[in-house]
């Protein structure tokens, strides 16, 4: 996994609450047995005017000019600004894979779906929780200023405008921060405790053999 330290990027606002993972990556694209290639179908039903299926030539499909990701001013955006409960619903990690594959590095919202929130960290993506009023301010600025960028400094736990006029602090669990900063493989870390796991397991299976 790539480490996440400091990231500066263009911000795209997705102004609706309760965006579910079905909308982020619709079910017909979950049939793949790979982790890559989902970006072209990110928000498929909102991004394109026709119905998408796996294997289509997406470059030739008609785009929905009203969907924010198709607005040229947000081309190349790497930070998604969202409303409350972003990523609710299905556990499909394909949603995080699709967002990463599209080019996103971080998400800012007042709250996230719990499973999606966890899935982000497993893929080197940073979901940031800011207050409703801070998010409102960012929506206003993103819409007001073309080319609005933010810098996310994970070590310092702050989101700021490049000129420093806005600075918002955010919380993150120390272990998650450590893994993200260093791009660590969690399975490798856990297996350092293999002996403790085995000892626990032996005791548990002795006490509850029906497991």
């Amino acid at each position, binding site marked *: 996994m790539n480490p996440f330290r400091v990231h500066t990027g263009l911000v795209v606002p997705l102004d609706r609450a309760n965006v579910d993972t*079905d*909308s982020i990556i619709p079910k017909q694209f979950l*049939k793949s047995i790979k982790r890559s290639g989902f970006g072209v179908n990110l928000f498929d039903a909102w991004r394109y005017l026709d119905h998408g299926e796996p294997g289509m030539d997406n470059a030739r499909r008609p785009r929905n000019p009203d969907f924010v990701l198709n607005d040229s001013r947000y081309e190349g955006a790497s930070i998604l600004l969202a409303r409350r*409960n972003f990523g609710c619903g299905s556990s499909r990690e394909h949603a995080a894979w699709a967002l990463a594959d599209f080019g996103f590095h971080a998400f800012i919202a007042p709250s996230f779906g719990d499973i999606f929130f966890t899935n982000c960290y*497993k893929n080197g993506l940073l979901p940031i929780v800011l207050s409703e009023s801070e998010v409102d301010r960012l929506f206003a600025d993103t819409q007001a200023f073309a080319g609005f960028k933010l810098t996310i400094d994970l070590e310092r736990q702050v989101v700021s405008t490049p000129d420093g006029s806005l600075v918002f602090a955010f919380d993150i*669990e120390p272990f998650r921060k450590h893994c993200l900063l260093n791009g660590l493989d969690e*399975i490798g870390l*856990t297996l350092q405790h293999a002996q403790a796991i085995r000892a626990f397991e032996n005791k548990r299976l002795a006490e509850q053999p029906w497991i």
Partner: protein
Amino acid sequence: MTARTLYDKLWDSHVIREEADGTALLYIDRHLVHEVTSPQAFEGLRLAGRKPWRMQSVVATADHNTPTKDWNRGIQDPISRTQVETLDGNIREHGAKAYFPFLDRRQGIVHVIGPEQGATLPGMTVVCGDSHTSTHGAFAALAIGIGTSEVEHVLATQCLLTTKLKSMLIRVDGRLPPGVTAKDLVLSIIGRIGTAGGSGHAVEFAGEAVRALSMEARMTMCNMAIEAGARSGMIAADERTFDYIKGRAFAPTGEMWDRALAQWRGLRSDDNAKFDTTHVFAAADIRPQVTWGTSPEMVVSIEDRVPDPDRERDSARRDGMERALSYMGLRPNTPMTHIHIDKVFIGSCTNSRIEDLRQAAAVARGHHVAKNVKLALVVPGSGLVKAQAEAEGLDKIFRDAGFEWREPGCSMCLAMNDDRLEPGERCASTSNRNFEGRQGAGGRTHLVSPAMAAGAAIAGHFVDVRRLA
């Protein structure tokens, strides 16, 4: 000793180690696996040269992608077939405690077959790469829906790396009125606390109304905990729990059963246990529910009308309501009973068990699906549920009434197979999500109980099942 919640007890008995910041290694007893969220996890193990830790914890099946008819023709969609065959290959290579592949008579929706086989037991930690894993909490288990990276982590280490959630008590006092089901109760809870109401919490459902529910109804409640934002839902163990489990394929027997029972009896919150958040509901107030929008929290009772955004003061909520009404093709203030439907889906991990089918059949018996209803599907949750229903003659009741009687699977709950809505079609569905496009691009989903779905199929529009003779 301080009083503990059921969640505290389940958590404490599975923590192997805990970091200073609260990140814990939680031992996982049961890992349920299906074809959609596991291939990348097994591939990850292969690429890293790792072996699964304990495949004896794994119970697997193919359910999301499998067709519900013409099983003799196999899986026609080549991409779906590849995914199902990939699961076959992974289980062949690594083994499992049990595998119920496509065409096996015990195959079915992973959250139906776990309990049905006695593979979900009280006191267990249960994970699955599926958000509706919360279902298994009905057995006083800590059941957690996880992503594919976590599936790989559990396969490789038998542990989940996680932090302890806050605890929420949802207590339902009194008894549910006749004609009102667990589905109506849980939808009305979501309507009140919202789809993010349980975020960051493990929810325990308790109170007289919950105690009175059957195990299958309790599974319906816990299944929908995730629609309230809670990764885990749970209910204390009692005699009803034990009666359900006894005699099932993987349940302990003889002396082991007695030992298990002695341990399971303590799986309830202590009387003075403290919860971070508590919500109290009166069962007597609950009426049959129908969703009107594109989020499970957008729900009203069958006696109500489609809400009017003009009466909503919060502008963000008003925008959301307007967008939902536009997608759903509904006008504000329309009585719910005036909404006509095109299709009906009775099935899913929420409502496809034998009691669900009995309730729907009781409404359908002796009637016929209305002319405006193009398709009314009944999809049993498993091969064993299907066989039981057929032994009771429910299939005949449904067929005589004009319903299609299908093979088990997830089917039109998420429409990965051929069962789906066409753009603009409106469906009365016993499933769990009314998100845009969930049951097919452009499809319009109204979530209801099995009896309400059957009633809508017969009338051609939503009806109050309490008024049906």
